Protein backbone atom coordinates (compact mmCIF):
# COMPACT_ATOMS: atom_id res chain seq x y z
CA UNK A 1 0.00 0.00 0.00
CA UNK A 2 1.22 3.50 -0.78
CA UNK A 3 2.74 5.60 2.00
CA UNK A 4 0.21 7.36 4.16
CA UNK A 5 2.74 9.80 5.60
CA UNK A 6 6.22 11.15 5.02
CA UNK A 7 7.14 9.56 8.34
CA UNK A 8 6.17 6.16 6.99
CA UNK A 9 8.26 6.72 3.88
CA UNK A 10 11.24 7.86 6.00
CA UNK A 11 10.89 4.70 8.09
CA UNK A 12 11.12 2.58 4.95
CA UNK A 13 14.25 4.48 3.89
CA UNK A 14 15.88 3.81 7.25
CA UNK A 15 14.83 0.18 7.42
CA UNK A 16 16.21 -0.61 3.96
CA UNK A 17 19.03 1.93 3.94
CA UNK A 18 17.73 3.58 0.78
CA UNK A 19 17.06 7.08 -0.48
CA UNK A 20 13.57 8.58 -0.55
CA UNK A 21 13.13 8.25 -4.32
CA UNK A 22 14.02 4.57 -4.14
CA UNK A 23 11.43 3.97 -1.45
CA UNK A 24 8.83 5.50 -3.77
CA UNK A 25 9.95 3.38 -6.70
CA UNK A 26 9.97 0.15 -4.68
CA UNK A 27 6.48 0.82 -3.41
CA UNK A 28 5.25 1.44 -6.96
CA UNK A 29 6.79 -1.80 -8.21
CA UNK A 30 5.38 -3.79 -5.29
CA UNK A 31 1.93 -2.24 -5.51
CA UNK A 32 1.52 -2.81 -9.23
CA UNK A 33 3.48 -6.06 -9.26
CA UNK A 34 5.94 -4.91 -11.90
CA UNK A 35 9.74 -4.77 -12.18
CA UNK A 36 11.51 -1.65 -10.94
CA UNK A 37 13.03 -1.29 -14.42
CA UNK A 38 9.56 -1.05 -15.92
CA UNK A 39 8.54 1.56 -13.38
CA UNK A 40 11.72 3.49 -14.24
CA UNK A 41 10.98 3.29 -17.96
CA UNK A 42 7.51 4.67 -17.39
CA UNK A 43 8.87 7.52 -15.28
CA UNK A 44 11.46 8.26 -17.93
CA UNK A 45 8.59 8.53 -20.40
CA UNK A 46 6.91 11.14 -18.20
CA UNK A 47 10.17 13.08 -17.98
CA UNK A 48 10.62 12.97 -21.75
CA UNK A 49 7.04 14.15 -22.24
CA UNK A 50 7.77 17.18 -20.04
CA UNK A 51 10.90 18.06 -22.03
CA UNK A 52 8.97 17.70 -25.29
CA UNK A 53 6.08 19.77 -24.05
CA UNK A 54 8.22 22.79 -23.19
CA UNK A 55 9.79 22.63 -26.65
CA UNK A 56 6.47 22.56 -28.48
CA UNK A 57 5.38 25.90 -27.06
CA UNK A 58 4.16 28.20 -29.81
CA UNK A 59 3.89 31.89 -28.84
CA UNK A 60 1.50 32.60 -31.70
CA UNK A 61 -1.28 30.42 -30.24
CA UNK A 62 -4.12 31.73 -28.12
CA UNK A 63 -6.49 29.78 -25.88
CA UNK A 64 -10.06 29.20 -27.02
CA UNK A 65 -11.26 32.19 -24.98
CA UNK A 66 -8.40 34.38 -26.18
CA UNK A 67 -7.33 35.21 -22.64
CA UNK A 68 -3.91 33.56 -22.58
CA UNK A 69 -1.25 32.09 -24.85
CA UNK A 70 1.44 34.68 -25.48
CA UNK A 71 2.85 34.98 -21.95
CA UNK A 72 5.64 32.42 -22.41
CA UNK A 73 6.91 34.23 -25.49
CA UNK A 74 6.79 37.62 -23.82
CA UNK A 75 8.79 36.43 -20.84
CA UNK A 76 11.37 34.85 -23.11
CA UNK A 77 11.81 38.05 -25.12
CA UNK A 78 12.17 40.04 -21.93
CA UNK A 79 14.75 37.78 -20.37
CA UNK A 80 16.90 37.95 -23.49
CA UNK A 81 17.58 41.59 -22.68
CA UNK A 82 19.47 40.41 -19.62
CA UNK A 83 17.96 42.93 -17.26
CA UNK A 84 15.44 41.02 -15.18
CA UNK A 85 14.85 41.70 -11.52
CA UNK A 86 14.90 38.04 -10.57
CA UNK A 87 18.07 37.25 -12.48
CA UNK A 88 18.59 35.15 -15.57
CA UNK A 89 18.06 31.75 -14.02
CA UNK A 90 14.82 32.56 -12.23
CA UNK A 91 13.52 34.34 -15.33
CA UNK A 92 14.03 31.10 -17.26
CA UNK A 93 12.13 29.18 -14.60
CA UNK A 94 9.31 31.69 -14.97
CA UNK A 95 9.31 31.49 -18.76
CA UNK A 96 9.11 27.69 -18.66
CA UNK A 97 6.25 27.77 -16.17
CA UNK A 98 4.35 30.16 -18.43
CA UNK A 99 5.06 28.08 -21.53
CA UNK A 100 3.61 24.98 -19.92
CA UNK A 101 0.58 26.83 -18.58
CA UNK A 102 -0.06 28.29 -22.04
CA UNK A 103 0.44 24.90 -23.70
CA UNK A 104 -2.22 23.48 -21.46
CA UNK A 105 -4.68 26.29 -22.13
CA UNK A 106 -4.04 26.01 -25.88
CA UNK A 107 -4.80 22.27 -26.02
CA UNK A 108 -1.25 21.11 -26.49
CA UNK A 109 0.24 18.00 -24.89
CA UNK A 110 1.27 18.35 -21.24
CA UNK A 111 1.94 16.12 -18.23
CA UNK A 112 -0.52 16.62 -15.38
CA UNK A 113 1.62 17.23 -12.27
CA UNK A 114 -0.40 16.76 -10.17
CA UNK A 115 -3.14 18.31 -12.34
CA UNK A 116 -3.33 19.88 -15.78
CA UNK A 117 -3.85 23.34 -14.27
CA UNK A 118 -0.62 23.04 -12.27
CA UNK A 119 1.33 21.31 -15.05
CA UNK A 120 3.96 24.06 -15.29
CA UNK A 121 5.40 24.07 -11.78
CA UNK A 122 7.43 20.86 -11.79
CA UNK A 123 8.89 21.13 -15.31
CA UNK A 124 9.76 24.80 -14.74
CA UNK A 125 11.83 23.80 -11.73
CA UNK A 126 13.33 20.54 -13.03
CA UNK A 127 13.76 21.08 -16.76
CA UNK A 128 15.34 24.51 -16.30
CA UNK A 129 17.89 23.05 -13.89
CA UNK A 130 18.57 20.08 -16.16
CA UNK A 131 19.28 22.30 -19.13
CA UNK A 132 21.15 25.10 -17.41
CA UNK A 133 23.44 22.88 -15.34
CA UNK A 134 23.55 19.86 -17.64
CA UNK A 135 22.63 17.63 -14.72
CA UNK A 136 22.61 13.87 -15.33
CA UNK A 137 19.24 12.67 -16.59
CA UNK A 138 19.13 9.86 -14.04
CA UNK A 139 19.17 12.33 -11.22
CA UNK A 140 16.21 14.15 -12.76
CA UNK A 141 14.20 10.95 -13.06
CA UNK A 142 14.95 10.19 -9.41
CA UNK A 143 13.61 13.66 -8.67
CA UNK A 144 10.44 12.80 -10.56
CA UNK A 145 9.98 9.88 -8.14
CA UNK A 146 10.46 12.24 -5.22
CA UNK A 147 7.78 14.55 -6.63
CA UNK A 148 5.38 11.68 -7.30
CA UNK A 149 5.93 10.18 -3.85
CA UNK A 150 5.28 13.47 -2.11
CA UNK A 151 2.21 14.05 -4.28
CA UNK A 152 0.84 10.64 -3.44
CA UNK A 153 1.17 11.29 0.28
CA UNK A 154 -0.65 14.63 -0.16
CA UNK A 155 -3.36 12.77 -2.11
CA UNK A 156 -3.66 10.19 0.66
CA UNK A 157 -3.88 12.73 3.50
CA UNK A 158 -5.56 15.64 1.75
CA UNK A 159 -6.35 16.22 -1.94
CA UNK A 160 -4.95 17.37 -5.25
CA UNK A 161 -7.97 18.92 -6.93
CA UNK A 162 -9.01 22.57 -6.89
CA UNK A 163 -12.64 21.51 -6.74
CA UNK A 164 -11.94 19.64 -3.48
CA UNK A 165 -9.43 21.81 -1.67
CA UNK A 166 -8.82 25.04 -3.58
CA UNK A 167 -5.71 25.98 -5.53
CA UNK A 168 -3.49 25.23 -2.52
CA UNK A 169 -4.20 21.60 -3.42
CA UNK A 170 -3.15 22.06 -7.07
CA UNK A 171 -0.49 24.77 -7.42
CA UNK A 172 0.31 24.39 -3.72
CA UNK A 173 0.86 20.65 -3.99
CA UNK A 174 2.72 21.06 -7.28
CA UNK A 175 4.99 23.54 -5.53
CA UNK A 176 5.57 21.22 -2.58
CA UNK A 177 6.36 18.35 -4.95
CA UNK A 178 8.75 20.49 -6.98
CA UNK A 179 10.49 21.85 -3.88
CA UNK A 180 11.18 18.33 -2.63
CA UNK A 181 12.27 17.18 -6.10
CA UNK A 182 14.81 19.94 -6.73
CA UNK A 183 16.08 19.56 -3.18
CA UNK A 184 16.92 15.95 -4.04
CA UNK A 185 18.68 17.01 -7.24
CA UNK A 186 20.87 19.37 -5.20
CA UNK A 187 21.83 16.60 -2.83
CA UNK A 188 19.40 17.28 0.00
CA UNK A 189 18.64 14.36 2.32
CA UNK A 190 15.16 13.02 3.03
CA UNK A 191 14.54 15.34 5.97
CA UNK A 192 15.59 18.34 3.92
CA UNK A 193 13.28 17.49 1.07
CA UNK A 194 10.47 17.08 3.58
CA UNK A 195 11.22 20.52 5.01
CA UNK A 196 11.34 22.01 1.50
CA UNK A 197 7.93 20.52 0.77
CA UNK A 198 6.49 21.72 4.07
CA UNK A 199 7.71 25.28 3.57
CA UNK A 200 6.42 25.42 0.01
CA UNK A 201 3.01 24.17 1.13
CA UNK A 202 2.80 26.58 4.03
CA UNK A 203 3.61 29.55 1.83
CA UNK A 204 0.67 28.79 -0.44
CA UNK A 205 -1.74 27.59 2.20
CA UNK A 206 -5.22 28.99 1.79
CA UNK A 207 -4.81 29.72 -1.91
CA UNK A 208 -8.27 29.64 -3.48
CA UNK A 209 -9.34 28.18 -6.81
CA UNK A 210 -10.99 30.96 -8.78
CA UNK A 211 -10.73 30.35 -12.51
CA UNK A 212 -12.42 33.00 -14.63
CA UNK A 213 -15.37 31.43 -16.42
CA UNK A 214 -14.35 28.07 -14.95
CA UNK A 215 -11.57 27.87 -17.55
CA UNK A 216 -8.03 26.77 -16.69
CA UNK A 217 -6.55 30.05 -17.93
CA UNK A 218 -6.83 33.00 -15.54
CA UNK A 219 -5.30 33.01 -12.93
CA UNK A 220 -3.96 29.49 -13.53
CA UNK A 221 -1.26 30.14 -16.13
CA UNK A 222 0.52 32.76 -14.04
CA UNK A 223 -0.03 30.88 -10.82
CA UNK A 224 2.33 28.25 -12.19
CA UNK A 225 5.02 30.93 -11.96
CA UNK A 226 4.11 31.57 -8.35
CA UNK A 227 4.30 27.86 -7.59
CA UNK A 228 7.66 27.41 -9.31
CA UNK A 229 9.38 30.43 -7.76
CA UNK A 230 8.02 29.46 -4.35
CA UNK A 231 9.36 25.92 -4.78
CA UNK A 232 12.86 27.20 -5.58
CA UNK A 233 12.83 29.48 -2.57
CA UNK A 234 11.62 26.71 -0.26
CA UNK A 235 14.27 24.31 -1.56
CA UNK A 236 17.01 26.89 -1.07
CA UNK A 237 15.83 27.49 2.49
CA UNK A 238 15.91 23.76 3.22
CA UNK A 239 19.35 23.39 1.67
CA UNK A 240 20.52 26.30 3.82
CA UNK A 241 19.59 24.22 6.84
CA UNK A 242 16.37 26.07 7.64
CA UNK A 243 13.72 23.69 8.93
CA UNK A 244 9.95 23.79 8.98
CA UNK A 245 8.98 23.99 12.62
CA UNK A 246 5.76 22.14 11.77
CA UNK A 247 6.43 18.59 10.51
CA UNK A 248 5.45 18.10 6.88
CA UNK A 249 2.69 15.55 7.59
CA UNK A 250 1.03 18.02 9.94
CA UNK A 251 1.32 20.76 7.35
CA UNK A 252 -0.49 18.53 4.85
CA UNK A 253 -3.20 17.85 7.43
CA UNK A 254 -3.54 21.58 8.05
CA UNK A 255 -3.94 22.14 4.33
CA UNK A 256 -6.76 19.60 4.34
CA UNK A 257 -8.46 21.39 7.20
CA UNK A 258 -8.16 24.73 5.44
CA UNK A 259 -9.54 23.19 2.25
CA UNK A 260 -12.49 21.67 4.09
CA UNK A 261 -13.37 25.03 5.57
CA UNK A 262 -12.99 26.87 2.29
CA UNK A 263 -16.25 28.19 0.88
CA UNK A 264 -17.50 26.39 -2.21
CA UNK A 265 -17.45 29.65 -4.16
CA UNK A 266 -13.64 29.37 -3.91
CA UNK A 267 -13.35 25.81 -5.17
CA UNK A 268 -13.34 25.85 -8.96
CA UNK A 269 -16.92 27.01 -9.26
CA UNK A 270 -15.90 30.17 -11.10
CA UNK A 271 -17.90 32.23 -8.59
CA UNK A 272 -15.57 33.77 -5.98
CA UNK A 273 -12.09 35.28 -6.00
CA UNK A 274 -10.95 36.90 -9.24
CA UNK A 275 -13.61 34.84 -11.03
CA UNK A 276 -16.14 37.05 -9.30
CA UNK A 277 -14.57 40.33 -10.39
CA UNK A 278 -16.37 42.75 -12.68
CA UNK A 279 -13.83 42.23 -15.42
CA UNK A 280 -14.28 38.46 -15.16
CA UNK A 281 -18.04 38.85 -15.59
CA UNK A 282 -17.49 40.92 -18.73
CA UNK A 283 -15.12 38.33 -20.14
CA UNK A 284 -17.52 35.51 -19.37
CA UNK A 285 -20.37 37.29 -21.12
CA UNK A 286 -18.21 37.58 -24.20
CA UNK A 287 -17.15 33.92 -24.26
CA UNK A 288 -20.39 32.12 -23.50
Amino acid at each position, binding site marked *: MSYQSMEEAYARCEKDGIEFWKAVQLEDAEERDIKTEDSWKQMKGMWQAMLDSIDTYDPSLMS*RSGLVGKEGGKMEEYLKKGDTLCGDYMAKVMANALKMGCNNACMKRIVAAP*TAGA*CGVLPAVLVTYYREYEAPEERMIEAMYVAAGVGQIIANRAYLAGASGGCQAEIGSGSGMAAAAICHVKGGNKEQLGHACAMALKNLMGLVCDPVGGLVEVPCVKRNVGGAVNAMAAADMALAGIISQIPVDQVIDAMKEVGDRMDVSLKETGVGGVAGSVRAQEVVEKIF
Partner: protein
Amino acid sequence: MANIFDILGPVMVGPSSSHTAGAVRIGLIARQLFGRQPDKAVVYLHGSFAATGKGHGTDKALIAGLLGMKPDDLRIPESFDIAEEMGMEFVIEPKELRDAHPNTAKIIMEEKGGKRLELQAYSIGGGRIRVSMLDGMEVNFSGETNTLIVRNQDQPGCITDVSTVLNLCKVNIATMQVFRARRGGSAVMVVETDQVVPKSAIEMLEGREGILKVTFLNVSEKE
Protein backbone atom coordinates in the same frame (compact mmCIF):
# COMPACT_ATOMS: atom_id res chain seq x y z
CA MET B 1 -6.26 3.82 -5.10
CA ALA B 2 -4.13 6.25 -7.10
CA ASN B 3 -0.67 5.06 -8.14
CA ILE B 4 2.25 7.44 -8.71
CA PHE B 5 1.40 7.78 -12.39
CA ASP B 6 -1.97 9.18 -11.47
CA ILE B 7 0.00 11.87 -9.63
CA LEU B 8 2.58 12.49 -12.39
CA GLY B 9 0.42 12.01 -15.41
CA PRO B 10 -1.49 11.42 -17.48
CA VAL B 11 0.32 12.79 -20.50
CA MET B 12 -2.60 14.59 -22.07
CA VAL B 13 -3.78 17.40 -24.26
CA GLY B 14 -4.99 20.29 -22.08
CA PRO B 15 -6.60 22.17 -20.60
CA SER B 16 -8.39 20.01 -18.03
CA SER B 17 -7.91 16.46 -16.84
CA SER B 18 -11.59 16.16 -15.98
CA HIS B 19 -13.14 18.18 -18.81
CA THR B 20 -10.71 17.30 -21.62
CA ALA B 21 -8.74 14.10 -20.90
CA GLY B 22 -11.71 12.48 -19.15
CA ALA B 23 -14.00 13.45 -22.02
CA VAL B 24 -11.68 11.81 -24.56
CA ARG B 25 -11.74 8.65 -22.44
CA ILE B 26 -15.55 8.67 -22.36
CA GLY B 27 -15.68 8.92 -26.15
CA LEU B 28 -13.05 6.24 -26.56
CA ILE B 29 -14.74 3.77 -24.23
CA ALA B 30 -18.07 4.43 -25.94
CA ARG B 31 -16.45 3.55 -29.26
CA GLN B 32 -14.77 0.44 -27.87
CA LEU B 33 -18.06 -0.78 -26.41
CA PHE B 34 -19.82 -0.07 -29.67
CA GLY B 35 -17.18 -2.15 -31.41
CA ARG B 36 -16.50 0.28 -34.24
CA GLN B 37 -16.69 3.90 -35.23
CA PRO B 38 -20.34 4.94 -35.20
CA ASP B 39 -21.82 6.43 -38.37
CA LYS B 40 -23.79 8.81 -36.26
CA ALA B 41 -23.39 10.02 -32.69
CA VAL B 42 -25.62 12.21 -30.57
CA VAL B 43 -23.79 13.66 -27.58
CA TYR B 44 -25.52 15.30 -24.63
CA LEU B 45 -23.53 17.38 -22.14
CA HIS B 46 -24.79 17.73 -18.58
CA GLY B 47 -23.91 20.04 -15.68
CA SER B 48 -20.42 21.47 -15.69
CA PHE B 49 -19.73 19.71 -19.00
CA ALA B 50 -22.50 21.82 -20.51
CA ALA B 51 -21.58 25.02 -18.66
CA THR B 52 -17.82 25.17 -19.24
CA GLY B 53 -17.36 22.41 -21.79
CA LYS B 54 -16.81 24.71 -24.70
CA GLY B 55 -13.88 26.54 -23.13
CA HIS B 56 -12.35 23.24 -22.05
CA GLY B 57 -12.76 21.60 -25.44
CA THR B 58 -15.02 18.94 -23.90
CA ASP B 59 -17.04 18.77 -27.13
CA LYS B 60 -13.96 18.28 -29.31
CA ALA B 61 -12.56 15.80 -26.80
CA LEU B 62 -15.66 13.57 -26.82
CA ILE B 63 -15.70 13.47 -30.62
CA ALA B 64 -11.95 12.76 -30.66
CA GLY B 65 -12.54 9.76 -28.41
CA LEU B 66 -15.32 8.48 -30.66
CA LEU B 67 -12.82 8.68 -33.52
CA GLY B 68 -10.47 6.44 -31.57
CA MET B 69 -8.05 9.08 -30.30
CA LYS B 70 -6.37 8.83 -26.89
CA PRO B 71 -6.14 11.72 -24.40
CA ASP B 72 -2.63 12.67 -25.60
CA ASP B 73 -3.53 12.89 -29.29
CA LEU B 74 -2.49 16.23 -30.74
CA ARG B 75 -5.33 16.10 -33.26
CA ILE B 76 -7.98 16.52 -30.54
CA PRO B 77 -8.51 20.25 -31.29
CA GLU B 78 -9.26 19.37 -34.93
CA SER B 79 -11.58 16.47 -34.17
CA PHE B 80 -14.67 18.09 -35.72
CA ASP B 81 -12.99 18.39 -39.10
CA ILE B 82 -11.55 14.91 -38.85
CA ALA B 83 -15.00 13.49 -38.06
CA GLU B 84 -16.29 15.06 -41.24
CA GLU B 85 -13.43 13.61 -43.28
CA MET B 86 -14.01 10.19 -41.76
CA GLY B 87 -17.74 10.35 -42.37
CA MET B 88 -18.95 10.37 -38.78
CA GLU B 89 -21.99 12.55 -38.31
CA PHE B 90 -22.48 14.07 -34.89
CA VAL B 91 -24.68 16.42 -32.89
CA ILE B 92 -23.73 17.93 -29.53
CA GLU B 93 -26.29 19.49 -27.24
CA PRO B 94 -26.58 20.52 -23.61
CA LYS B 95 -29.13 18.50 -21.66
CA GLU B 96 -30.18 18.15 -18.05
CA LEU B 97 -29.83 14.50 -17.09
CA ARG B 98 -31.60 13.27 -13.98
CA ASP B 99 -29.47 12.55 -10.91
CA ALA B 100 -26.29 12.73 -12.94
CA HIS B 101 -22.79 13.68 -11.74
CA PRO B 102 -21.90 17.26 -12.84
CA ASN B 103 -19.34 16.06 -15.38
CA THR B 104 -21.57 13.70 -17.30
CA ALA B 105 -21.96 12.99 -21.01
CA LYS B 106 -24.53 10.80 -22.66
CA ILE B 107 -23.71 9.35 -26.06
CA ILE B 108 -26.04 7.61 -28.48
CA MET B 109 -24.18 5.76 -31.21
CA GLU B 110 -25.69 4.37 -34.38
CA GLU B 111 -24.54 2.27 -37.27
CA LYS B 112 -26.42 2.93 -40.52
CA GLY B 113 -29.19 0.37 -40.70
CA GLY B 114 -27.62 -1.50 -37.85
CA LYS B 115 -26.96 -1.49 -34.16
CA ARG B 116 -27.38 1.26 -31.65
CA LEU B 117 -25.80 1.80 -28.23
CA GLU B 118 -26.57 4.33 -25.56
CA LEU B 119 -24.00 5.12 -22.91
CA GLN B 120 -23.75 7.56 -20.06
CA ALA B 121 -20.48 8.22 -18.25
CA TYR B 122 -18.90 10.81 -16.01
CA SER B 123 -15.45 12.15 -15.42
CA ILE B 124 -14.03 11.90 -11.89
CA GLY B 125 -10.82 13.92 -12.38
CA GLY B 126 -7.25 12.97 -13.22
CA GLY B 127 -8.47 11.76 -16.60
CA ARG B 128 -10.39 8.89 -15.04
CA ILE B 129 -14.02 8.11 -15.70
CA ARG B 130 -16.88 5.84 -14.74
CA VAL B 131 -19.57 4.47 -17.01
CA SER B 132 -22.92 4.91 -15.27
CA MET B 133 -25.57 3.78 -17.77
CA LEU B 134 -25.64 1.39 -20.67
CA ASP B 135 -28.74 1.21 -22.86
CA GLY B 136 -30.76 2.69 -20.02
CA MET B 137 -29.49 0.22 -17.42
CA GLU B 138 -27.57 1.52 -14.45
CA VAL B 139 -23.99 0.21 -14.32
CA ASN B 140 -20.77 1.30 -12.68
CA PHE B 141 -17.33 0.55 -14.09
CA SER B 142 -14.13 2.40 -14.98
CA GLY B 143 -13.10 0.80 -18.25
CA GLU B 144 -9.51 0.72 -16.98
CA THR B 145 -9.40 -3.06 -16.99
CA ASN B 146 -10.76 -5.68 -19.37
CA THR B 147 -14.50 -5.68 -18.91
CA LEU B 148 -17.11 -8.14 -20.10
CA ILE B 149 -20.64 -6.83 -20.29
CA VAL B 150 -23.46 -9.30 -20.59
CA ARG B 151 -27.02 -8.19 -21.09
CA ASN B 152 -29.46 -10.88 -20.14
CA GLN B 153 -32.94 -11.74 -19.05
CA ASP B 154 -33.07 -11.79 -15.27
CA GLN B 155 -33.50 -15.53 -14.78
CA PRO B 156 -31.71 -18.26 -12.80
CA GLY B 157 -28.57 -19.71 -14.33
CA CYS B 158 -27.20 -16.75 -16.24
CA ILE B 159 -24.56 -15.90 -13.69
CA THR B 160 -23.45 -19.51 -13.47
CA ASP B 161 -23.28 -19.66 -17.28
CA VAL B 162 -20.95 -16.70 -17.39
CA SER B 163 -18.67 -17.94 -14.64
CA THR B 164 -18.56 -21.44 -16.13
CA VAL B 165 -17.61 -20.18 -19.58
CA LEU B 166 -14.93 -17.88 -18.17
CA ASN B 167 -13.60 -20.69 -16.04
CA LEU B 168 -13.38 -22.95 -19.10
CA CYS B 169 -11.27 -20.33 -20.89
CA LYS B 170 -9.08 -19.85 -17.80
CA VAL B 171 -10.12 -16.23 -17.45
CA ASN B 172 -9.95 -15.00 -13.88
CA ILE B 173 -12.76 -12.77 -12.65
CA ALA B 174 -11.48 -9.70 -10.78
CA THR B 175 -14.86 -8.19 -9.91
CA MET B 176 -18.43 -8.93 -10.86
CA GLN B 177 -21.50 -6.73 -10.56
CA VAL B 178 -25.08 -7.48 -11.43
CA PHE B 179 -27.67 -4.81 -12.17
CA ARG B 180 -31.30 -5.30 -13.08
CA ALA B 181 -34.17 -3.01 -13.94
CA ARG B 182 -36.75 -5.17 -12.11
CA ARG B 183 -37.12 -8.78 -11.13
CA GLY B 184 -37.44 -10.99 -14.19
CA GLY B 185 -36.78 -8.04 -16.51
CA SER B 186 -33.60 -7.19 -18.32
CA ALA B 187 -30.37 -7.26 -16.40
CA VAL B 188 -26.73 -6.55 -17.01
CA MET B 189 -23.61 -8.18 -15.65
CA VAL B 190 -20.35 -6.26 -15.57
CA VAL B 191 -17.38 -8.55 -15.12
CA GLU B 192 -13.86 -7.18 -14.83
CA THR B 193 -11.33 -9.81 -15.84
CA ASP B 194 -7.60 -10.26 -15.43
CA GLN B 195 -7.18 -11.79 -18.88
CA VAL B 196 -8.62 -11.13 -22.30
CA VAL B 197 -11.88 -12.98 -22.90
CA PRO B 198 -11.43 -14.94 -26.16
CA LYS B 199 -13.84 -14.57 -29.06
CA SER B 200 -14.92 -18.18 -28.73
CA ALA B 201 -16.11 -17.54 -25.18
CA ILE B 202 -18.14 -14.55 -26.29
CA GLU B 203 -19.77 -16.62 -29.02
CA MET B 204 -20.46 -19.40 -26.57
CA LEU B 205 -22.16 -16.98 -24.22
CA GLU B 206 -24.20 -15.38 -26.97
CA GLY B 207 -25.69 -18.78 -27.71
CA ARG B 208 -26.94 -19.35 -24.16
CA GLU B 209 -30.58 -19.03 -23.31
CA GLY B 210 -31.53 -15.75 -21.69
CA ILE B 211 -28.40 -13.92 -22.83
CA LEU B 212 -29.27 -11.05 -25.13
CA LYS B 213 -26.02 -9.30 -25.92
CA VAL B 214 -22.36 -9.69 -24.99
CA THR B 215 -19.80 -6.92 -25.29
CA PHE B 216 -16.16 -7.06 -24.36
CA LEU B 217 -14.00 -4.06 -23.64
CA ASN B 218 -10.45 -5.10 -24.39
CA VAL B 219 -7.98 -2.67 -22.85
CA SER B 220 -4.89 -4.67 -23.79
CA GLU B 221 -5.72 -4.39 -27.47
CA LYS B 222 -4.24 -1.49 -29.43
CA GLU B 223 -6.39 -0.03 -32.15
